């Protein structure tokens, strides 16, 4: 039924099967939309946020997807600016994943501000003393860049590409994509950094506060570095999941291994920097502020030393070392393990820097404040996941996302007997005769 839209040389499941698979995801999406509308119509009293938690599950999700979407800017940087040409075989998917992550982040922010109609205030009535203003500027601009990077992919749909204007537009955009990629890398450096900077400048909250280099706290650099390190990990993980679901090899191993190797070295250097930062914070900053390290990890039901161990060692050093070593990186199971640990690690880091920071008491007479999200918060946080699955599924089905797919999964020609049987039923000029490929209107 939709054969004419499916990329040339690619095989897809029947439309009914595709739609049946998406139905449960669409239902989850509707649940999220319902919760979103409740938040917009009834207000933020639908959430469990309070005076202690101005930032909550949404901001954690926001920071996590922005870090995980970092694969787009870093892959673009590597391909267009460093010249790692092999990455052209995965860059489309990295862009798509980045687009999903950043559009999700903006959607979450639109819910979180409570009054989305006033979203433009941050641009017009900008508080230039806030790192979040810079985040809003860069995030929005980078979303434009990602849209520009995703647009040529959409225009390469088999039918859209037949329209001469779209074909040429897509071609022109590819030609100057390096400029957009450089702009994206510039914007990403600053917004990733400023997201980290928000916690690092909180001098009233010693758990988050870090020493500065000029006006930037260490967390500024750690956040940018971790997004560049773990973003590609997420790209690899989603690629692997897509390969499992479609039961196809979509990207050659050498491309995955190259990205894993770069990601591994970035993660290793990040692990070194993060460990040094933690040691300095624990041994110098915390005592200077009048606290002991144990103050931040005891006397509460959730946040113990275990979280520091999991973030730094289990999901920091371990996946980094696994990806740096060629032997372990090229073992499929260990690669899976390393990228999953990496994704958990960076998400946990964002949790710690958003939620644990707010949980720690800042005055002697205060207690730890733990927070449980309301169902509306959970539903609206799952909403972008459902949206992402739908957009990725549609893009995979109708767009040439994976340049190596046709080569890795050649379509076998139908048996001679079948072809002869089908022959008389198909008109030579019909779309089915050319595998659903319509002839150009201009030709």
């Amino acid at each position, binding site marked *: 039924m939709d054969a004419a839209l499916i990329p040339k040389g690619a095989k897809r499941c029947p439309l009914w099967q595709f739609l049946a698979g998406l139905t449960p995801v669409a239902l989850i999406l509707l649940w999220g939309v319902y919760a979103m509308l409740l938040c917009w119509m009834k207000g933020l009293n639908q959430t469990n946020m309070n005076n202690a938690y101005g930032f909550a599950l949404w901001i954690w999700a926001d920071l996590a997807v922005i870090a995980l979407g970092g694969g787009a800017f870093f892959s673009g940087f590597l391909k267009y600016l460093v010249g790692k040409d092999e990455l052209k075989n995965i860059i489309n998917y990295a862009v798509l994943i980045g687009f999903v992550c950043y559009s999700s982040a903006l959607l979450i922010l639109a819910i979180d501000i409570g009054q989305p109609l006033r979203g433009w205030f941050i*641009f*017009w*009535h*900008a508080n*230039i*003393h806030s790192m979040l*203003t*810079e985040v809003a*500027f*860069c995030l929005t*601009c980078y979303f*434009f*860049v990602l849209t*520009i990077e995703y647009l040529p992919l959409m225009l390469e749909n088999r039918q859209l590409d037949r329209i*001469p*204007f779209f074909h*040429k*537009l897509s*071609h*022109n*955009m590819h030609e*100057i994509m390096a*400029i*957009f990629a450089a*702009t994206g890398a*510039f*914007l990403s450096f*600053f917004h990733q950094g400023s997201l980290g900077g928000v916690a690092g400048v909180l001098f009233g909250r010693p758990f988050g506060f870090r020493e500065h280099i000029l006006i930037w706290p260490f967390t500024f650099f750690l956040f940018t570095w971790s997004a560049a390190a773990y973003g590609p990990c997420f790209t690899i993980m989603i690629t692997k999941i897509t390969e499992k679901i479609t039961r196809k090899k979509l990207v050659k191993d050498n491309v995955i291994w190259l990205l894993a190797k770069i990601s591994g070295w970035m993660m290793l250097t990040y692990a070194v920097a993060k460990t040094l930062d933690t040691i300095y914070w624990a041994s110098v900053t915390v005592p200077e502020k009048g606290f002991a390290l144990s103050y931040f990890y005891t006397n509460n039901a959730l946040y113990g030393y275990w979280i520091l161990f999991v973030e730094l060692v289990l999901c920091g050093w371990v996946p980094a070392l696994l990806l740096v070593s060629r032997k372990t990186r090229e073992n499929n199971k260990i690669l899976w393990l390393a990228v999953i640990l990496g994704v958990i690690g960076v998400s946990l880091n964002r949790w710690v820097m958003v939620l644990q920071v707010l949980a720690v008491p800042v005055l002697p007479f205060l207690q730890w404040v733990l927070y449980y999200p309301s169902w509306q918060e959970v539903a609206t946080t799952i909403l972008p996941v459902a949206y992402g699955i739908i957009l990725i599924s549609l893009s995979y089905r109708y767009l040439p996302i994976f340049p190596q797919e046709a080569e890795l999964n050649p379509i076998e020609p139908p048996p001679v007997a079948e072809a002869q049987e089908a022959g008389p039923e198909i008109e030579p000029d019909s779309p089915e005769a050319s595998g659903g490929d319509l002839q150009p209107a*201009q030709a």
Partner: protein
Amino acid sequence: MFPFSFEWIWDLGHMVFHGGLWYALTIIGLGMTYCVIKAVLDTQKDNGSHHH
């Protein structure tokens, strides 16, 4: 915010923040304008060569 808005102040913060924003938007805008205009011209050129 533009420099002619009543809230604007000529200080480093406003110039850096808004300068960066307009700089990025200008690159994005000019890049897309170039692509669209070139695509229109290329398409017209192709149509012209078909007619002759």
